[in-house]
């Protein structure tokens, strides 16, 4: 039966195996003189043990479907907007990126009115830039258009 603990345990065990594989490229050293791969390998071993333990004893945990994923579409939309923000931040500049991301989030994801969306997005983009970049002197990216 697919339970939350079993799925998580399997994923952790898989990650541990990936770490084992990737650690081949680094010197392991010895027990008395550990190399750079020593700790990652030990930790991957620990993670593998816990992952396998969760798969074995995780049968009594909640079913995966019972975890409640009803809001996943919303979560994916928010994540996509954030990913756009990360991609565009240094390409378009802080103010343009934040204004576009906020406008999409408020106007498309949350379906707010056009006037409110535009005004709020511009105000927050410009306001936070003024506060952090101008007043607090935290340098924020300006992008090719100085925005």
């Amino acid at each position, binding site marked *: 039966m697919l339970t*939350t*603990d079993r*799925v*998580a*345990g399997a994923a*952790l065990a898989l*990650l541990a195996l990936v*770490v084992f594989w*990737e650690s081949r490229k*680094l*010197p392991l050293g*010895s*027990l*008395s*003189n*550990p*190399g*750079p*791969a020593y*700790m*990652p390998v030990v*930790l991957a071993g*620990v*993670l593998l043990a*816990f*992952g396998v*333990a*969760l798969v074995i*004893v995780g049968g009594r945990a909640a079913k995966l479907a019972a*975890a409640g*994923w009803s*809001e996943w*579409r*919303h*979560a994916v939309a*928010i*994540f996509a907007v*954030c*990913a756009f*923000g*990360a991609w565009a*931040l*240094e390409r378009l500049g*802080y103010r343009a990126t*934040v204004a576009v*991301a*906020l406008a999409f*989030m*408020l106007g498309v994801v*949350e379906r*707010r009115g056009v006037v409110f969306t535009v005004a709020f997005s511009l105000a*927050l*983009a410009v306001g*936070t830039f003024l506060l*952090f970049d101008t007043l*607090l*002197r*935290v*340098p*924020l990216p300006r992008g090719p258009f100085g925005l």
Partner: protein
Amino acid sequence: MVETLQNLALGFSVALTPGVLFYAFVGCVVGTLVGVLPGIGPLAGISLLLPATFGMDATRAIVMLAGIYYGAMYGGSTTSILMRIPGEAASVMTCIDGYAMARKGRAGAALAIAAVGSYVAGTVSVVALMFLAPPLASFALRFGPPEYFALLVLGLLVLAYMSGGSMVKALAMAALGLLLGMIGIDQMTGYFRFAYGVVELGDGIGVVPVAVGLFGLAEILATAGLPTPPEVIKPKLRELLPSRREWSQSAWPIGRGTVLGFLIGIIPGSAHIISSFVSYAVERRLSKHPEEFGRGAVAGVAGPESANNSATSGAFVPMLALGVPSGPIPAVMLAAMMVHGVSPGPLLIKQQPELFWGFIASMYVGNVVLLILNLPLVGVFVNLLRVPYPVLYPSILVFCILGVYAVNGSVVDVWIMLVMGALGYVLRKLDFETAPIVLGVILAPMIEMALRQSLAMSDGHYGIFVTRPIAGTLLAVGGVLLLLSLKPLITRSLDWRARLALAEKGEERL
């Protein structure tokens, strides 16, 4: 004693300068806002505002960030009492009786008791911090790499033991955090580990993007699509004064909550959350009318609120005296201090007495500021909750991206935050604690360095961890904890950690 008072006088001479006083006030206000707003806890709040402190001197920066921490503890009670929504996790227990009191028309009294309890606990626990940290720091001067290794391992084991739910899951998360902490240049050999050509990963994964992703972004991803919160109960200013009976009912719970909270705060783990749970359980057990709990018992508000504020100061003891964070919030505070060139640990008190004692004195001042803020201005803070969440959360997201980017001026950090946000969202759904990941990330380089230095000292013999008394004792305590965690598996009963997990999920009314 006389020396401590002289040092405290030095601290007040720093804390009462207009500049420091101003930033203590700003920290308290921002912290209260952070506590009031659901979806942004003290951890994310401190992480996000870290870049804003870059232009300040170290004392002002640390005082402001500490103000955010204990301000959030105060602010979290407001939404718990008026909306039954915990502003941050430590206020979960306050929801039960605080909201019940509000529904009986005693919202003002509940808020006042929470604020006064928090003030008393905050002040008393700072006194304890003041007396406990210096001797502990002197003791820690005897620590070498083996002792630090044992202490750090014990810290992770205690964190896992004190987390609600399964210890196997908590330890798996700690191992995951430690593995993430392995990314970057190996300090002993200079090898790049798991960086895949990304130069920015050379310094490793920062604790700020990890914390903001796991706690800030993940919370928004999980809650933004949910129905809107219930209506806010609005207290009137004249109703803020509790009755004589309510005062007398709250006196002992405040005292007990203060002591319990401080002691639990020193122990590694999500201390402020656990302390409120333990305090609630103790008060119900000691009460002559346990049937009132869940229906508006004054002790059910006074105890947990005092405990979670007291735990905040307790958590600073190992951080300041040993340089070892006891949980994710002290870990971020530690990172913040390092950004400002301050190295917490045994030598801090001797080398930078103005900073240490100024910080202690500012906590006294901060508690007074918070008492003033939380009573008359409660209506102002509650108004914030009228901002619809679909408008609020995009604004919080902007601060998440801005805060994470500004720490190093690196987009890679923003991507790390996104990955951690997605991971935190999934782990939350799968019922895993994410706090051990944050602690693992910051402890990983320290543990590895301590292990390798110890082995260099002993010519490769692992016996050094057992033959040295302090290290051996610390590891033995860790072993006992591991054995204790196996007990529920053998007796097939629910231990306190399982009950805490249930209570946090709201599936069980204590």
